[in-house]
């Protein structure tokens, strides 16, 4: 079997590695226009910050690919002929395949702002984006970042580390309002303030203004304000790269449409990761998942189907993590910005504003825990996964909270404070803390 994978991001590479395990004799080819070698997209910011060199964000050393017989092609896939099972490349040759995986990822969204084509205006998704940013931010004194999401805060951190004054434009009333409850967003705002980021909420970009050299000179906001800046970062989300599949005749909507086995409408053509849109997402799930983790899960799942072991995509309890300047964020299960009907929420916050823990749980008799937000606290994924799958009552979770503590040794333990606060807020569900973490041990 020859498996051809378009895209060498986390989805394509995970699929390749899984297929290599399942079918040691399969021929596997990875095509990427962006870079010859797989790299970690979430790590782009660390190269700019100077924490890492470009080669340090490659998850595998260069010998890895040849030793595992994974063929790498550095070219753009221009067209797919699903009837003949061929893919033509920008460099000339045409590749034939038995199975084709589209893992083409996504691209930064644009809102057709006047001036968005000016020099010094860009997003940060790809390696070429990073190179442009690296080149274009020399000598920049002021920058504007548009979008109150994860990339927006990353851009703000990158720029402010270079002593560039940053204004962040956020459409909503608080940071990442589509995901974070207000209390969590307030802690992120504290971080932004501590790092001197000027955040303008309820404000959008109206227009980008040029100078004589067609470089950005300033932006005008929807509030009518003109902000001088020499660089603009656009980070209002990403959209699936579906054009290649669309041109080949695959059914697409916002993304490439796939069934629960991640198959497209074309025979032997699959799509996974950022570019895929599920036709029938499970209840409460989104149709397009654009996360490193979900990309990895989908790549692994589709590999099984490709190797003749049809496997439905079942992600299991949601999880995600991020870091907002110095504030780490982990979430397990679902904690929507607004408390869903039929659920209670409990939120504990340390007076310093550097630690927060929120638990959502069902208001019925099960008291089953449905989600956790942790800021400035590290929580153990395996333990939370079990609690969420089992629908463990919040009272049991709190009593056993020490078992989920993943903070390093000698860190202050907050479980007793958390339980005390819960008992004050929900005296009808009394909890006694049974499990603290030992100083030098875990798993008692």
């Amino acid at each position, binding site marked *: 079997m020859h498996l051809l994978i378009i895209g060498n991001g*986390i989805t394509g590479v995970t699929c390749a*590695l899984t297929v290599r*395990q399942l079918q040691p004799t399969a021929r596997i080819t990875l095509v990427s226009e962006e*870079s010859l*070698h797989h*790299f*970690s997209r*979430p*790590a782009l910011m*660390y190269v*700019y910050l*100077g*924490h*890492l*060199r470009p*080669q*340090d*964000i*490659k*998850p595998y*050393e*260069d010998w890895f690919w040849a*030793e*595992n017989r994974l063929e790498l092609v550095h070219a753009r896939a221009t067209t797919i002929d699903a009837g003949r099972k061929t893919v033509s490349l920008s460099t000339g040759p045409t590749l034939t395949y038995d199975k084709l995986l589209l893992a083409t990822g996504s691209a930064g969204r644009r809102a057709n702002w006047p001036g968005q084509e000016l020099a010094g205006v860009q997003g940060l998704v790809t*390696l070429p984006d990073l*190179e442009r940013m*690296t*080149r274009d*931010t020399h*000598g920049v004194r002021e920058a504007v970042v548009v979008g109150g999401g994860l990339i927006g805060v990353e851009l703000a951190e990158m720029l402010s*580390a*270079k*002593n560039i004054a940053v204004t962040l434009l956020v459409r909503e009333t608080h940071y990442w309002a589509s995901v974070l409850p207000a209390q969590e967003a307030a802690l992120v705002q504290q971080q932004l303030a501590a*790092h001197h980021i000027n955040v303008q909420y309820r404000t959008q970009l109206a227009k980008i203004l040029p100078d004589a050299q067609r470089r950005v000179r300033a932006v005008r906001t929807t509030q009518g304000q003109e902000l001088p800046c020499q660089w603009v970062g656009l980070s209002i989300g990403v959209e699936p790269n579906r054009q290649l599949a669309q041109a080949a005749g695959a059914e697409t909507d916002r993304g490439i449409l796939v069934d629960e086995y991640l198959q497209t409408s074309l025979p032997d053509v699959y799509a996974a990761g950022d570019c895929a849109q599920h036709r029938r997402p499970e209840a409460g799930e989104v149709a397009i998942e654009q996360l*490193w*983790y979900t990309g*990895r899960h989908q790549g*692994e799942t589709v590999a099984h189907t490709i190797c003749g072991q049809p496997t439905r995509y079942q992600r*299991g309890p949601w999880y995600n*993590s991020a*870091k907002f*300047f*110095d504030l*780490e964020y*982990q979430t397990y299960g679902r904690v929507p910005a607004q408390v869903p009907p039929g659920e209670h929420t409990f939120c504990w916050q340390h007076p310093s504003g550097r630690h927060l823990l929120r638990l959502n749980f069902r208001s019925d008799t099960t008291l089953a825990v449905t989600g956790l937000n942790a800021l400035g606290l*590290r929580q*153990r*994924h*395996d333990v939370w*996964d079990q609690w969420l799958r089992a629908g463990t009552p919040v009272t049991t979770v709190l009593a056993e909270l020490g078992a989920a503590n*993943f*903070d*390093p*040794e*000698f*860190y*202050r333990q907050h479980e007793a404070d958390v339980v005390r606060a819960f008992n004050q807020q929900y005296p009808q569900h009394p909890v006694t803390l049974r499990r603290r973490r030992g100083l*030098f*041990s*875990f798993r008692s």
Partner: protein
Amino acid sequence: MRKLPAVTSGLADRAFRAEANVFVSVFCLMSTVSLAAPTPPVTPVSGVEKALLTLVGLGLLLLLPVAFDADAERARLCFFVALGLLSAGTLGWAAFTFGRKPAGVRQDNLWLRGSTGRGSLAWLTAVVLTGFYVVLYWFSADDGQGNFGPLNQLVHALDPLSQALRRHPADQWFLYGTFYTLAVLVMGGRALWKYRPSPYQQIRTVSVMFFQLGFAFLLPGLMLALQRPEYYFSYFWPLKQDYLFPGTVSYLLKDGGPGLGVFMVFWGAVMSFLATPVLTYFFGKRWYCSWVCGCGGLAETAGDPYRHLSDKSREAWRWEVRLIYPILGLIVLITALLWLGAAGALPGWFTTPQQSGVPLLGGLSPVDGLGKVYGFFIGSIFAGVIGVGFYPLMGSRVWCRFGCPMAAYLGLLQKHFSRFRITTNGGQCISCGNCSNICEMGIDVKQYAQRGEPIIRAACVGCGLCSTVCPRGVLNLENGPREGRYQGSQLITAESLRILS
């Protein structure tokens, strides 16, 4: 802190060539870059920073008149003013750099600055450090009349301190010990500022500062003042290889007196053969390498700006295994031969002085000669000249990783008989590489983290920086039951594809 004469031989050439191979392969691997990018802007240096660095520069400059001024009083004054400026400048710089921003992990521009990114300043620093070690080890021995070669004035500037502490005049090793301790304390202060969000890093840094000052500086000096052997209670065989040589043992028993001498020998043996396995079983090798050891203490403080320079490649790992275990085997063999010789269990030739004509070995028995060769190449050249001199080019743990027999011994225990591991948090790894980058021992930590596997490596000294810098809260140093120690997370399918052959 070893005291051996300079010499060259065929063995030296071979050893150097082996070393050179490591370095050549290391540097070749460094240059395999295919994700090329222009250089990002570097944060401008502020006026305050320049002023504080000026203090450091003036301090360095003032050491010159100390070395060459004929007036001993003035030289001494210059010396202490120089140390004061160096310390104040460095601590002030650290407080300014890490203190004015909110507490957090600050690694900005690490690879972009020449001083920490193998730039010209790093080369210069390496040449100066290496040169200092060469002069110290081979050109500054007492000529019998209290002259210490090029370091003479520096040594004598310390006479009052040495007299106060040890009731002995200073020598070149006291000068070295003073510089070493000062480096650990001052750069330890910097580390305390830098890592202040992490209680683990703070406590650990205080620990290495305490053991260097107390156990490797004050206590040995005090022993000397009391006319006792200058014993270091924080160094053990096989790192301090001669502490269990028959010659040292009999000297300690004689000069230490019936109580203290016996205690010293007992302490050394118990620490090497009982405390080391027991403590490593419970806590991993970190209890020593990154909490107590002086070499580790210097690496964790003065070497901290260079920790990311260690080579993470598979090839470097192969060199590590090729070098460190044979060195452990060699010192075990030498120690065994010395004891067998002392017990008269070896044929006479082994313990009879020979006139071999080889400069280093002249007049020594073959067994003693072997010990001397080891001390010269491993103890002096590897541990000192390369181990510290090459900090700015190869990272802070070259000796610990490639050469130290104690690290090899602790590593074997950690790998096979310990409750220690670094746990990976489920599926949360994003393969960003910050953990691998910061690992001073050159472990490619993310190879394990991205598979959801715990990290159990002989090399790991448990400094905890991978956990500190992880932006997703993925890594944690833990001690737990040995059952299931290698068990990976169920939330990520660990690829069985080989990362090592």
